[in-house]
């Protein structure tokens, strides 16, 4: 015969302070656990959204990042004349040859400088990245010292409002627009005219090339040909894969740190749950004896106390996930080590994260409840009745 579910539920309610304290401990652990997963997820989705599957990014072999890369004009010419490259409406290949540099700008909240990517792009670059939309002002005029800034940059850095001027490369650059890149990495960049940028920075080489494939499956053939060509020292990657790789080190660091912390913290919370459940068992010794005398089996007692522990875990998990979901409103930005530049991203709550956070919480409750429940189930009827 089973002990009714409401018995476990009411027991938790009967000792509200203890339940609340234990659940609070569990909730904090779940909060940390979920937050870390959300942060990692947010970082990944930001960088994954940056690339498109049928775009190919070409950089110098073993450069690793766009900023470190250099492609001279001869090589660029060879690359853009490949047959896999899609043609635009004007019959010209859909290729954007871009130049990237980093400049340091003061952050608005702390005033401390951080590295920001300046991308010298072309109009085709905008065609290749349809997620980039001008939301305020206008696009730069080709051949002018005008720049547009990404949404995250506009939000968190000084001196980048429309009409203001930035000084770098011995020139003053006027901000003429703000663009929204749909929460991708481009939101943390400043864009301008590629030719003007190259002049200002005295560069003769492009940093990277982006091009659209006319057939998304043709990538492998193109990559093999480009990398085997003796005239070229380049490597080709799908744009999406490239940006995913850019986030790898930071994402891995966040995940390892977060999981280590969660495990250490969970020890504390499990102990909390264990203390609560032991006390709960000890306080109800007489009650357990009565239940046994009434004919409830050991298994039923075990199940009832385990249910109580699971409920405790579930309450903690629910509160923790609810707290974590409020973190979605916050955007964080930090320097991505691989690209050495500032990147803004937000906490991203997915159903998978909710599920694993709840599983984690219930698991903690279960671990904390298993020993006390076993102790309750093992009690002898006579002894426990006498103890009361």
């Amino acid at each position, binding site marked *: 015969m089973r002990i009714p579910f409401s018995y476990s539920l009411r027991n938790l309610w009967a000792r509200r*302070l*203890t339940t609340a*304290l*234990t659940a*609070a*401990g569990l909730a*904090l*652990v779940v909060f*940390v656990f979920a937050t870390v997963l959300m942060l990692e997820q947010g970082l990944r989705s930001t960088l994954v959204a940056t690339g498109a599957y049928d775009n190919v990014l070409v950089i*110098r*072999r*073993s*450069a*690793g990042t766009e*900023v*470190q890369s250099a492609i001279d004009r001869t090589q660029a010419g060879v690359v853009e004349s490949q047959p896999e490259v899609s043609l635009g409406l004007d019959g010209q290949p859909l290729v954007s040859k871009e130049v990237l*540099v*980093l*400049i*340091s700008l003061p952050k608005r909240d*702390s005033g*401390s*400088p*951080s*590295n920001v990517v300046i991308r010298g792009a072309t109009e085709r670059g905008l065609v290749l990245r349809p997620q980039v939309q001008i939301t305020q002002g206008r696009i730069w005029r080709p051949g002018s010292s005008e720049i547009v800034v990404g949404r995250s940059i506009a939000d968190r850095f000084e001196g980048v409002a429309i009409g203001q001027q930035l000084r*770098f*490369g*011995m020139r003053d650059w006027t901000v003429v627009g703000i663009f929204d890149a749909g929460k991708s990495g481009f939101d943390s960049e400043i864009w301008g005219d590629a030719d003007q940028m190259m002049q200002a*920075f*005295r560069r*003769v080489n492009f940093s990277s090339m982006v091009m659209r494939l006319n057939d998304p499956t043709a990538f492998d053939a193109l990559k093999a040909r480009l990398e085997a060509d003796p005239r070229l*020292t380049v490597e080709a990657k799908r744009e999406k894969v490239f940006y995913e790789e850019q986030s790898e080190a930071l994402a891995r660091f966040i995940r390892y*740190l977060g999981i280590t*912390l969660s495990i*250490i*913290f969970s*020890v*504390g*919370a499990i*102990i*909390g749950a*264990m*203390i*609560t459940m*032991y*006390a709960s068992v000890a*306080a109800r010794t007489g009650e357990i004896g009565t239940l046994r005398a009434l004919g409830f089996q050991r298994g039923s007692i075990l199940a009832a106390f385990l249910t109580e522990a699971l409920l405790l875990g579930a309450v903690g998990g629910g509160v923790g996930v609810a707290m974590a979901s409020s973190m979605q409103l916050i955007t*964080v*930005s*930090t*320097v991505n080590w691989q690209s*050495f530049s*500032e990147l803004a991203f937000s906490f991203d709550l997915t159903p998978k994260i909710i599920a694993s956070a709840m599983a984690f919480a219930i698991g903690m409750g279960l671990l904390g409840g298993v020993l006390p429940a076993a102790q309750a189930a093992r009690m002898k009827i006579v002894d426990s009745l006498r103890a009361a």
Partner: protein
Amino acid sequence: MFLKFILRNALRHRLRTSLTALGIFVAILAFGLLSTVIEAWFSGVNTASSSRIITRSSVSLVFPLPATYREKLRQVEGVTGVAGVNWFGGVYQETKNFFPQFAVDPEDYFPLYPEYLIPEADYKEFLRDRKGAIVGRKLADTYGWRVGDVVPLKGMIYPGNWEFVVRAIYEGRDSKVDTSQFFFHWDYLNERVKILMPRRANYYGLYVLGIADPDRAAETGRVIDAQFRNSLAETLTETERAFQLSFVSMVETLVVAIRVVSYLVIFIIMAVMANTMAMSARERLSEYATLKALGFKPFSVGGLIVGESMAIALIGGALGVIATFPVAEMFRRLVGSLFPVFEVSQATVMLQFVCAAVVGIVAAVIPSVRAARVQIAAGLRAVA
């Protein structure tokens, strides 16, 4: 008498007390480790010398400064030494084997860093060999390098395969000195760059300057920056400390997150501890009433609970502090060269004890107030 009472009380529920102490132990240990991680992050800042300033491109670190600046910098008043430095960014065998590598002016660089102790004879060997390298003790131990070994690096910024010969191993003057760095001749880099990528030759990433009077660092910096204003490569000169701090502030968010989390763990354990004390106090309500009936003041009754809570917290905390040292050592071995300096500081230990004491006191507040206020008649009637 009072103390004995507290200890006896604490030992009444051995299981509960030891579980709670274990919880405190874990929390204080975690707190200590996290504080140490943060300190390790700031280690470069704390060891920065006030007699060195750094001149770099005002736009950002990726823009180099011409090699011709070296002589101009040397002529600035108050500057005692100038050494150019380039970040090499090579990979040893695998990408995960990260350690900082710098191409430096060998005769000028090391005199600026008296905290690097290099055997005189080895240093001369290093100067003689253009492919020579000086590596830190910790780095050498990590990869098992000895003087005379050849170290191949794959260039990420300067493409190609580069070979270096370890000519000397430097020790730190004290344990705070970063001995995980790799230095080699700037000339070796530059000569090859001249052939392979002539446009990138004759540049330095930054200059390290020794100054005679640390109090005039800001003034010297202004003089230098004024000299190069409106040139192709404008400079930004700051103290070594400010320079190091700019790196830390880049990952500010992460540091803040770790700090928040380290206090969060204390909060979690506070909830656990408060729970334990609340349960104990509730069970003993009738005892407290008895004590009061015997004439003990409410203050003493409350003190019993605070004392018990403090005793458990401090015992758990002390064990946690003791365990921090071996665990930190283990962690240091695991992460390898990620943190150049990883040491549990005195401040961390103090903070750990303070946290344990605060947990002990805060956890006892509500139960002790409740016990102190208990009415004798009601308390005697109450059954746990």
